[in-house]
């Protein structure tokens, strides 16, 4: 026998965010008149401690068994209100949120009367649904105390070591033969000018010596199934396939250094037009000698359009690849719109290194904006003190590289200060190119179901608040796979991802989604459409009936919408609950 619904409604002023537009006291009075509502009140900030205390108090005092908060967005505040209900003994799913801020006061800031009317509509709909809510439980799953780290660059190795030192088993895979990622190709690191090997070698040694780390080079991820706490990954390497079972995954597969297409600034045509990373390699081998002049060009391929359509061909044909292809196509015009962050510093570092080896070499850096971010300004000063010449050129007109009749390279550009054309004969022209997304990343992201941002890098769960989490529970990102970073930033993100993953593994258990799909076996005809459509692989047709593996279900509702027999309903979002909301909208009360 179902208990009689006793709904409490809490309406938030949100300071003046809602209260400045919507007549909150009027909405409160209105809420009291609605069916099943036993209590309604308003608060200045329902999310404040006082507001939460008021909810808990009212639950006890009025024996409420359903709660509606009319305030902001469930994206940020639902967990908070749900917990308040739970603390007062009401199941956290007997809670409904009515968004009268984003959906009402913010968008109708200049129509207070209409906004108040709309707020009433929204509250009425929420109350109608609340009356039909049912308690749900969040299944608890075990978390295997092992992790898979993909990529053994700086970030991946740091993450692996951090977890291994806390006692977790780590499978560390690297697609190349050697450890170290992009950092291997660097000669020295800014701003300390330490050899990159000074960081890499101890790190590699510790990784190789750590008993908790199982290291597999020339190995990639072939397939992954499972869910938070219990992923089954197939790794493929020189000795064939290997299966591992892990609780968490950290993606640290890095990025690539953009190689300019042939002909861009005569790259690939003239031998002495090289990229910054190629200069690194020459410097480390002592091959640079004592040239008379080196000209560096910043932002080659970053912030403006220098990507060629031919760059697209190497991408595999898949949905995600399509997306990336679209991104790349857009970039054809304006280039990678982001700023690669590290190239300015990289250029300065190499300029200093050249000057230290060969003080008489004239080093000229052509730039649009000098992004010596953070505390590296002093490093920039050092370059200036060494008489590296910084010339701000008019970015809209790309520098032109020609060969004189004597076979000498010449760079022509427009000085932004004087507006005049300047020409520099040069022994070497060095192009500073950005870090760009790895091509392999596309398949990896697709396998793990991590979305890719419009810049082509993997997306974090929240750009501001969850920088190393992804929207796939149990999967984290570290290093440049989510965007350009320097060495210290990669180390920090490796540690951060390790912290986040080890919280899950240390706690051994985790609560997962309660809002999942339910199959009515009476109605199911076993057509398998749900199995086909599910992006998470949750439904399986067995013996003519669809079965949902709850732990995989993310509650997206695709199967429910697709099912031709209406055999699949969503917990917490049942047809009867949603229809009650619609009905409430269409039948306004006085």
């Amino acid at each position, binding site marked *: 026998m179902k208990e009689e619904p006793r709904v409490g409604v809490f309406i938030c002023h949100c300071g003046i965010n809602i209260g400045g537009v919507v007549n909150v006291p009027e909405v409160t009075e209105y809420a009291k008149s609605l069916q099943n509502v036993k209590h309604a009140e308003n608060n200045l900030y329902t*999310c404040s*401690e006082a507001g939460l205390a008021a909810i808990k108090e009212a639950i006890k005092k009025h024996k409420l068994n359903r709660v509606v908060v009319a305030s902001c967005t469930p994206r940020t505040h639902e967990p908070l209100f749900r917990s308040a209900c739970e603390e007062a003994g009401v199941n956290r799913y007997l809670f409904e949120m009515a968004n009268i801020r984003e959906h009402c006061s913010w968008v109708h800031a200049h129509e207070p009367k209409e906004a108040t009317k709309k707020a009433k509509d929204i509250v009425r709909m929420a109350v109608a649904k609340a009356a039909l809510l049912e308690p749900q439980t969040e299944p608890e799953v075990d978390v295997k105390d092992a992790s898979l780290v993909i990529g053994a660059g700086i970030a991946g190795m740091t993450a692996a070591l*951090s977890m291994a*030192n806390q*006692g977790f088993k780590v499978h560390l895979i690297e697609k190349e033969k050697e450890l170290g990622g992009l950092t291997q190709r660097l000669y020295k690191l800014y701003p300390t000018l330490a050899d990159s090997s000074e960081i890499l070698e101890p790190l590699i040694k510790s990784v190789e010596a750590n008993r908790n780390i199982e290291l597999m080079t020339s190995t990639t991820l072939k397939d992954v199934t499972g869910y938070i706490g219990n992923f089954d990954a197939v790794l493929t390497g020189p000795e064939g396939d290997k299966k591992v079972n892990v609780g968490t995954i950290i993606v640290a597969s890095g990025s690539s250094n953009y190689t300019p297409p042939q002909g861009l600034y005569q790259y690939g045509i003239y031998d002495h037009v090289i990229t910054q990373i190629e200069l690194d390699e020459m410097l480390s081998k002592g091959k640079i000698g004592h040239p008379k002049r080196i000209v560096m060009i910043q932002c080659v391929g970053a912030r403006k359009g220098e990507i060629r359509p031919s760059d697209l061909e190497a991408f595999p044909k898949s949905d995600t690849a399509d997306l990336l292809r679209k991104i790349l196509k857009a970039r054809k015009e304006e280039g990678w719109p*982001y700023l690669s962050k590290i190239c300015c510093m990289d250029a300065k570092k190499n300029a200093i290194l050249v000057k230290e080896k060969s003080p008489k070499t004239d080093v000229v850096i052509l730039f649009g904006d000098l992004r010596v*971010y953070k*505390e590296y300004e002093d490093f920039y000063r050092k370059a200036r003190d060494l008489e590296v010449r910084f010339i701000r050129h008019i970015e809209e007109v790309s520098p032109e590289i020609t060969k004189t009749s004597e076979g000498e390279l010449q760079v022509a550009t427009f000085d932004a200060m004087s507006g005049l054309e300047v020409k520099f004969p040069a022994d070497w022209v060095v192009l500073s190119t950005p870090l760009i997304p790895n091509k392999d990343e596309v398949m990896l992201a697709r396998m793990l179901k991590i979305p890719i941002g419009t810049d082509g890098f993997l997306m974090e769960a929240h750009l501001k608040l969850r920088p190393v989490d992804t929207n796939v529970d149990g999967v984290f990102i570290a290093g440049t796979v989510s965007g350009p970073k320097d060495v210290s930033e990669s180390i*920090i993100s490796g540690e951060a*991802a390790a912290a986040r993953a080890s919280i899950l593994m240390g706690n051994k258990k985790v609560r997962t989604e309660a809002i999942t799909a339910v199959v009515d076996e009476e109605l199911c005809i076993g057509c398998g459409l749900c199995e086909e459509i599910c992006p998470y692989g949750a439904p399986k047709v067995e013996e003519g009936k669809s079965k949902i593996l709850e732990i995989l279900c993310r509650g997206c509702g695709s199967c429910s919408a697709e099912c031709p027999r209406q055999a699949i309903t969503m917990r917490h979002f049942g047809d009867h609950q949603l229809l009650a909301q619609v009905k409430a909208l269409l039948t306004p009360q006085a």
Partner: protein
Amino acid sequence: MQKAVMVIGAGIDGIQASMDLANKGFKVYLVEKSPSIGGRMAQLDKTFPTMDCSMCILAPKMIECSHHPTVKLLTYSEVKEVKGSPGNFKVKILKKPRYVDEAKCTGCGICAQSCPAEAPNEFDENIGVRKAVYMPFPQAIPRIMVIDKNGCVECGLCDKVCPAKAVNREQKPEEIQLDVGAIVVATGFDMFDPSIIPQYGYKRYKNVITAMELERLLCASGPTGGHLIRPSDGKIPRHIAFIQCVGSRDRREWINHSYCSSICCKYAVKDAVLIKEHEPSALVTIFYIDMRAFGKGFQEFVNRAKSEFGIEFIRSNPGEITEDQKTSNPIISFEDPVTRTVHNVAFDLVVLCPALIPTQGVEKLAKTLGVELDNYGFVKLKDSVKNPLDTTVPGIFACGYCVGPKTGDIPDSITQGSATAARVSNILSDKEAS
């Protein structure tokens, strides 16, 4: 072996470190010198480049942190003494008197309503006033009132009206002893006072304000209820200028901040866009030296600010601001670097973007902890590349802007907060193994 950690500073970095440590099973003491947790992020209107309402994304984290069963908040408290070594630090905390009984106060605010004494409102950057008995801001945590003895007139009204009988004007400072295994420093930043640069006339000219003041003026919970008005006459400014690098990248001896503060370009563009959202007819100009829009999604944001919102960018570092005495309009003198001509342009409002500097009191704290500071007074790292989370003292880690502009923005601070949690677990579990 102590399974407890002290985190100093309860901004977003300290909150993240505390939450991650607590979720890893450590007992966490979160020490905050001001009466509420939340830090600088609580003062911001919106965050770049996603334009999330800052308080809206911060408040749930503050509440989650304060409700965590193994996080103990020690607000209005300072670290007085630290002894011992990694795994075994003995800490003395001084808890300043709120003159309000924490156990009794419900934060109802009736006392503030009846209080006759007013003092400048620090949370609103001293624009407007608060009462002598006050809640720092509406979402403050813990929800306990504070009596500011400097503003208090000792009338005793608060005591009379308090329904919980929580006022205790005889309260004394309290000393608390803690045993912790590791320490995380997350003390954040302060803003450079631009009145030190007399040419810009800050504090002399009413319509020259700082970016943090603007942030409060734009914020719906701010002193003007989110209406952008200028201080001299309360009118809506139509022509607004931002000046970048005020005290940053400045090698003059008496300023000595040769570093780039690394967030000002980004927030100035954000604020410019916010102004356009408030007042679509406003003209906004940003004076800058280099547009350093690094960080994910930011160059895209700058491009949009130009193309979609029509923000004007002028590459010039203005030499001086004067004031039109009749209109109180600040007049900016700047050199156009291409034509090499000097222009004088009047604006309705000028916003200075000051350098971020080490937080007040960090020098004393550093002495107490024994950690070294760098040339600028930020917490020095063991090695800025190899050990970007360790201070010069083993067992003491640092995250957020207290290590200087290495940090940058909110996601960087959060990443570092999480990362210090990993560093702490590493040293404390190492010890367990041996």
